[in-house]
């Protein structure tokens, strides 16, 4: 299993122009094998920039991004990405979307469908193989996105606000589904959200981020997600006084870091 690490990362957009913006400033973090790391913050605090670095869509202005000590130089199938709006391919049906990564590797159809079916079962979409993408609900599309990323068997799963566009009910179901997938596959997951409740519930390690410039202002170890994977009901976990207290504490962190950023503007 691989370790993904960022060290003293700075990302500036528009360097050399008048409108140079510092998106990330001195960010360091490590994603240990099998951990569930959540980045929480309002829009504009560099969460997606962080993910783009890990995925290899973006290179840091300074500092380093490494996977097992090797610098990340571009996208690669050992780092799977789940996108906010799915980024599925409408010209392919469900199973061909899920098997897309294996097709790129030249695996014969039989083998890749076998593996794609297993992943669809994992996300609860068996029987939907032949469906067209536009026939699926938002929640189902995100499950296809998760299955597609898993089919390539990555070491790390990078999720960019995958539940951001879903309604509240579907969102809670998807939180449980993703925790379930995490437990069964034992992948490392990096998960972005702006939902405080969601972040506290799911995170093994919670990173609170502040905007302008994007920084990590707090790293908190949590275990509500683990309680869920060990069999506790989500509703019971969220009703615990410990959960409520932690949620309030995190909320304060988020708001105070925002006020700080506003004050320095």
């Amino acid at each position, binding site marked *: 299993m691989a370790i993904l690490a960022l060290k003293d990362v700075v990302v500036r957009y528009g360097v050399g122009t008048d409108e140079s913006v510092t998106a990330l400033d001195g960010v360091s973090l490590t994603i240990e094998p099998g951990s569930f790391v959540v980045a929480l913050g309002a829009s504009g605090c560099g969460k997606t920039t962080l993910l783009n670095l890990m995925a290899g*869509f973006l290179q840091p202005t300074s500092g380093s991004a490494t996977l097992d000590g090797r610098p990340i130089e571009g996208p*690669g*199938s050992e780092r799977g990405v789940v996108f906010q709006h799915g*980024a599925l*391919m*409408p010209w392919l049906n469900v199973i061909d979307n899920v098997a897309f990564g294996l097709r*790129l590797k030249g695996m014969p159809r039989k083998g890749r469908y076998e593996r794609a079916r297993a992943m669809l079962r994992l996300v609860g979409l068996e029987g939907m193989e032949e469906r067209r993408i536009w026939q699926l609900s938002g929640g189902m599309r995100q499950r296809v996105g998760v299955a*597609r990323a898993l089919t*390539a068997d990555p070491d790390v799963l990078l999720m960019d606000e995958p539940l951001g566009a879903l309604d509240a009910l579907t969102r809670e179901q998807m939180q449980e589904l993703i925790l379930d997938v995490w437990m069964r596959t034992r992948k490392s997951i990096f998960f972005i959200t702006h939902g405080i409740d969601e972040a506290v519930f799911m995170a093994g390690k919670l990173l609170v981020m502040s905007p302008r410039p994007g920084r990590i202002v707090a790293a908190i170890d949590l275990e509500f997600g683990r309680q869920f994977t060990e069999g506790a009901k989500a509703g019971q976990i969220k009703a615990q006084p410990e959960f409520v207290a932690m949620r309030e504490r995190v909320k304060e962190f988020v708001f105070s870091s925002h006020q700080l950023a506003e004050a320095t503007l």
Partner: protein
Amino acid sequence: MSDVTRLASPEIDLSVPPLGARRLLGRRTYVAKVSLATCAAVVVLWWLAAWLEVVPAMFLPSPVAVTAKFFAVSSDGFQDATLSQHLLASVGRVIVALGGAIILGVVLGFAMHVSETARGVVEPLLEFYRPIPPLAYLPLVIIWFGIGELAKILVIFLGILPSIIIATNEGLTSVPHDTVNAARSLGATRLQVIQLVLLPHALPNIMTGTRIGLGTGWATLVAAELVAATRGLGFMIKGAADFLVTDVVILGILVIAAVAIVMELALRLIQRTLAPWQGHQ
């Protein structure tokens, strides 16, 4: 207060009728009915005008006369070729020109998308010749390429090409970043991104460009066949006009319209089959 009770009373149906498939279908058949009635009305008016001899038959032959001419030209021919031979010559030219334009248009559209140099080369040339009517550069094409098939096909081809290049390019620039990134994060090479993401994404646009181009192609056809052709619908019309055989002129126009409609419908069918996701995303 009474307003409120009235609104809530059961006699008034407040529900909005659903805009379901059935309603949509109903509307479509309604439009089809109106279209059919319009066509019928035009034919009736035409027939009336000819029958009452509003204008001399030499200038406006009746629908009956044109229909009779259709059978006469189909079997006996006009100017040394039957109608189907004229038709085949024209359709052949349009199809060869269209095929060439699709191949070169798609290639150039892709080249412009992936290479700034290619964009720099193609864009000014394209924007220079695109607004010029084919009739204006036809003489030059003839001076350069002679009066054979090549010049005719070339003019039609040049008429079709811009719409396909532009449509292809448009389809490529609208590819979402995330979709390309998704493929890259699954390990796609540059070539695989082009083949498996860019091409299928641009396909509906390419098809639309082809349909628009085909319209231009037919428009250019008659012009191309005005010069030194021995066969073709444009040639037939021109020849008939020279001798004031008005019924053959009208016949030629109707045949061109009919063939263009058939080709357009065929392309729409292909588009729906190849890109069923269009309009859903």
